């Protein structure tokens, strides 16, 4: 039984289902990556896990508890963190204020957590007084991840964290994500850059039309000729 598990998820926004009996899970300290062609339901699967999609069937288990019916905000309280793909920072607020807002639900002092985020992303420390809207794309992503980390989540869910950033920034971000995983955080992310993502993934899910097509370790998926041919461009 995984630490976070979406089991047999079926559902969609309107009358037609996007997900069909799709299952996704991740362990503590592990990185799980969802990949697949466009329109495969990658983001939808991840949103379903976070409670942003009504499920007709299936359930979500977190830490051995059924959280299928909790709202996203309530999941945050239980220890899940989420980094949306777009509009994932408060643009008019400074970097530090963004981090403070991330820790809004915590009542204890948060100076240590902020320091931790600055250790992870040193550039943010220099820019702490700058409005997040003035930062570059990669720095913004760091703020977004940092904001989500402020609650000390046990699971961190990332929606295409490297969308729109340069390859160098992407490698850097992946390095940080590995570091976060080493802190015993379970990481679930959707990635467009399937190859690079699978290289750092402990577990990979290849989705096609809302179905689980392949599920294996990242390494094994990269080695699988069928996956390579169909999804990784050879």
């Amino acid at each position, binding site marked *: 039984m995984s630490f976070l598990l979406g089991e047999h998820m079926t559902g969609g926004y309107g009358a037609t289902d996007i997900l069909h009996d799709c299952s996704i899970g991740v362990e503590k300290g592990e990185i799980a990556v969802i990949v697949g062609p466009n329109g495969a339901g990658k983001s939808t699967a991840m949103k379903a896990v976070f409670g942003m999609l009504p499920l007709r069937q299936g359930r979500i288990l977190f830490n051995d508890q059924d959280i299928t019916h909790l709202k996203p905000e309530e999941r*945050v*309280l239980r220890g899940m963190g989420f980094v949306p793909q777009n509009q994932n920072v*408060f643009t*008019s*607020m400074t970097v530090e*204020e963004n981090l403070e*807002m991330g820790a*809004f*639900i915590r009542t204890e002092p948060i100076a240590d957590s902020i320091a931790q985020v600055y250790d992870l992303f040193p550039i943010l420390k220099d820019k702490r007084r700058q409005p997040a809207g003035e930062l570059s794309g990669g720095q913004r992503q760091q703020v977004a991840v940092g904001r989500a980390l402020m*609650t000390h989540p046990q699971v961190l869910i990332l929606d295409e964290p490297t969308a729109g950033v340069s390859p160098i920034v992407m490698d850097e971000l992946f390095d940080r994500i590995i570091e976060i995983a080493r802190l015993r955080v379970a990481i679930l992310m959707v990635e467009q850059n399937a190859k690079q993502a699978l290289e750092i993934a402990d577990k990979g899910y290849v989705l096609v039309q809302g179905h689980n097509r392949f599920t294996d370790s990242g390494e094994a998926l990269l080695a699988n000729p069928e996956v390579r041919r169909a999804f990784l461009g050879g």
Partner: protein
Amino acid sequence: MTDILNALTLLANFLIIPGLTYGSQLALGALGVTLVYGVLRFSNFAQGETMAFGAMITILVTWGLQSIGVSIKPLPTALIAIPIGITVTAILTLAIDKVVYRYHRERRANPVIFLIVSIGVMFFMGGLIRFIIGPGDQIFFDGTRFILKAQEFKEMTGLNEGLSLKMTQAVTIAIALIIVTAMFWFLNHTRTGKSMRAYSDNEDLALLSGIDPDRVVMVTWIIVAALATVGGTLYGLDKSFKPFVYMQLLLPIFASAIVGGVGNPVGAIAGGYVIAFSELILTFAYKKVLLYLGPDNLELDSLIQFLGTDYKIAVSFIILVIVLVIKPTGLFSGKTI
């Protein structure tokens, strides 16, 4: 030299002091509009009536205090009645939010629907105010009328022109300063204030961060009630309290908010002063000033006025139109608080 001083005194007396006073009143009103726009995302047409309601409660309490002989002379008694005015107004705005706005908010209604709803609220409040206190003029000012009298100034300086400072003007400027400072401190340095800014900036992300939207909305209405009560009372003290006048304030207030950039508090304050000074500068008769500054034999048969005093209201509209044409986002572009 004396001529220049005389001219400056004239300007200070008829432009600068009244401009600062009126600008402060507009700024308080525009701040309320901007806060509602930033957090609740609609243009609140009921702002003028909210100001009138707050002022009305303050007046009723002031009368009560006056009748039992409470006085804080030289300051007007109304100042100690304001907290009660704010409390009652806050209760009303919160009740209206619960009964009226919340339903549409939960359904994520179109901003125009909110706007129409706010006009309904405006008429409801307008009727309520006229029902309670009547449509007529109400006087509730007491305390010392002048801090500095024109005559005293003339004697002090030996100038021809007098400079007077009314108590209400000084009180207005001082209180507006205090309120605005307090509000910025609140928005930038407290957890709740920051959460309001966050909610205004990015509602979805604010929810993900665990910010409670109901609380943000509640705090917003309380602040709006406070700003409206203070602004309305100061306006009533300085000019006079007449419900109809507050309805007419709506246009300059909206103009102030838009000139500064709707949703931006700094902009709202700047906008308030821009509108107030434009009104005064354009309707001021420069004849006397020019007589002082010009050559001695200068003769003028007109008042040298850009616009008749009657057309004050047109000024805010013209500025509004200019801003809409040139820079619709306002001077301090911004949609968040």
